[in-house]
């Protein structure tokens, strides 16, 4: 199968969505002739014109509100935030309007919009351009929140998000944009709310999100040489969470670790741990639950500090080894 980068896979999904439905349009900052800050929209403006690939003023709150209004009036807007950190400027429209309108109006409207958020650290962009805020939005009923980790998922989940009648927040890790992988050419959908077992294993369940899926797979490879067989689940969707897949896995492996880049406290790992603690899988646990998340700090500038602020493969190896060998 032909390979695409994660960014190219997103661009292909955007093009195929616009081909299929004239109601779909793109909006964002510098997504036109500039091609987007991370070259995701690339040359789409030349293929689809400025009416469908709209450069907007630097007005994140305004853009989010325009997306809500256009969605209410029959369009399917796909809004690109230049950095996920800028969601902070648009929270009013995302949290009070997009998420709640269907509920507040008694189910009489839909808000079919998509917001794309380039997220995460590792680019030297420091504390205001490197955050992982997906758990903020996953806390809001009415929103769906996805975090694809591969080029194939990036395409299939974005097409599912654009089809969805409700607002979907798509968190894309900036370090994944250049990752290559096999991507089918035709349009296809990967369902929202379904986790993916990225690696089967017997000894420990690792629930990871976004780039941490790859770091966890790397750790699992190293541990395999030591005879430790880790199962890695790519969560893919933060809301709604696929609890059943995690429960089934934990009942098999009897150990659970959560690996995510967002700040550890009150992050997605806390929710997954709680769901396991509340489920029948709790009785199967042979060890305490391990959370490996982002440091309790903003993302620092210095490259070594920046690496230290989020989980890395060696730390994941050590954590899982201790978990399996009963040293926690």
């Amino acid at each position: 199968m032909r390979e695409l980068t994660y960014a190219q896979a997103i661009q292909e999904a955007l093009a195929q969505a616009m081909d299929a439905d004239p109601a779909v349009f793109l909006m964002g900052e510098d997504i036109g002739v500039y091609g987007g800050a991370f070259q995701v929209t690339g040359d789409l403006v030349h293929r689809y014109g400025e009416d469908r690939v709209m450069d907007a003023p630097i007005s994140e709150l305004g853009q989010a509100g325009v997306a809500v209004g256009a969605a209410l009036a029959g369009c399917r807007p796909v809004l690109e935030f230049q950095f996920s950190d800028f969601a902070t400027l648009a929270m009013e429209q995302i949290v009070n309007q997009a998420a709640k309108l269907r509920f507040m109006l008694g189910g009489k409207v839909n808000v079919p919009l998509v917001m794309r958020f380039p997220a995460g650290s590792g680019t030297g962009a420091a504390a205001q351009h490197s955050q992982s805020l997906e758990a903020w939005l996953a806390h809001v009923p009415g929103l769906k929140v996805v975090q694809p980790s591969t080029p194939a998922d990036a395409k299939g989940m974005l097409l599912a998000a654009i089809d969805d009648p409700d607002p979907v927040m798509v968190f894309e890790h900036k370090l994944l944009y250049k990752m290559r992988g096999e991507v089918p050419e035709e349009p296809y959908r990967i369902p929202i709310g379904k986790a993916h077992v990225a690696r089967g294993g017997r000894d420990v369940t690792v629930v990871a999100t976004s780039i941490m899926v790859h770091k966890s797979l790397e750790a699992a490879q190293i541990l395999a040489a030591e005879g430790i067989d880790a199962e890695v689940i790519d969560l893919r969707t933060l809301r709604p969470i696929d609890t059943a897949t995690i429960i089934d896995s934990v009942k098999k492996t009897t150990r659970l670790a959560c690996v995510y880049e967002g700040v550890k406290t009150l992050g997605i790992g806390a929710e997954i741990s709680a769901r396991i603690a509340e489920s029948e899988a709790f009785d199967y646990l042979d060890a305490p639950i391990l959370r490996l998340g982002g440091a309790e700090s903003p993302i620092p500038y210095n490259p070594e500090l920046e690496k230290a602020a989020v989980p890395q493969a060696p730390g994941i190896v050590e954590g899982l080894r201790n978990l399996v060998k009963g040293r926690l």
Partner: protein
Amino acid sequence: MNAVGRIKPNARPFYQKYSADGLKEALRKMYLIRRFEEGAEEAYMRGLIHGTMHLSIGQEGSAVGATMGLRTSDYITSTHRGHGHCIGKGADPKLMFAEFFGKEEGYCRGRGGSMHIADVATGNLGANGIVGGGLPIAVGAALAIRKQKRDDVAMCFFGDGASNEGAFHEALNMAAVWKLPVVFVCENNKYGMSVSTERSMAVANVADRAAAYGMPGVIADGNCIADVEEAVADAIARARRGEGPALVECKTYRTRGHSRSDRNRYRTKEEIEEWKARDPIPLFETELMAHGLATGAEVNAIRESAEAEIAAGIEFARLGTDPNPAEVTRDVYSDGAA
């Protein structure tokens, strides 16, 4: 009967443009709003409804004057003080009362309440509990109108307080750079809750702010329905012609407090009385009768019919169906996912 030909040629355009029946219908809507607000207040006092509410008594001239020239397919976005806009755009007061009473029959099936009444079927995209929340939403609706090649408009109601929000400035700028069919209607009732415009705005008029976005900014007497309608009609026509957005500032006043908690410590009785003397409803009645478009008996009949409709609406709401508490998460998502 059409008023044209009956009315003096020197009467202002508002009285020439609409038929006598059309003008009497506008008066009836003003009465419906007034009685709706009074009925809601009374129901609250009697403990029939809970929560809070923001009454627009005194602002009926701008609500009806601004919406008279709209079609069903035009959109409005409204505010926390939005009951008048709803009725102006064609909502049924009995379904609004049902919403106030938290009943399944209400516009939002009892989930929204006073601050979230919407009626998508009549183009009302919703009141809003967030000051300035509807401004960018109206711009988005106008963008959809243009993409769908319609000649409709999106009318955005907001207050003087909202013009101090960032959303106002972002929305006006985007509407202007994209030349979208938005009619921004500011109801300046002099106070953002308790803080006067003098204390919160660096310019004298909200309309002055339109210049920063290269769009016309017009001031209307918000208590004179004719003045509002004429100013808004120009803005609507301009928007329909594809010439972009405009802002109309209606200078008006709410004679009740901001909400149920207001103790009126920030304004004088004299100021309230001065504005009550310029009540938009008697002002309109006087003009209708002076132009020979309605008799005193007709005006009385209109008022009584509005009163009867409101009383029936409250009774309808009182007898409505309570939502099932087991359905608290219904309609969070279209597919029921949580």
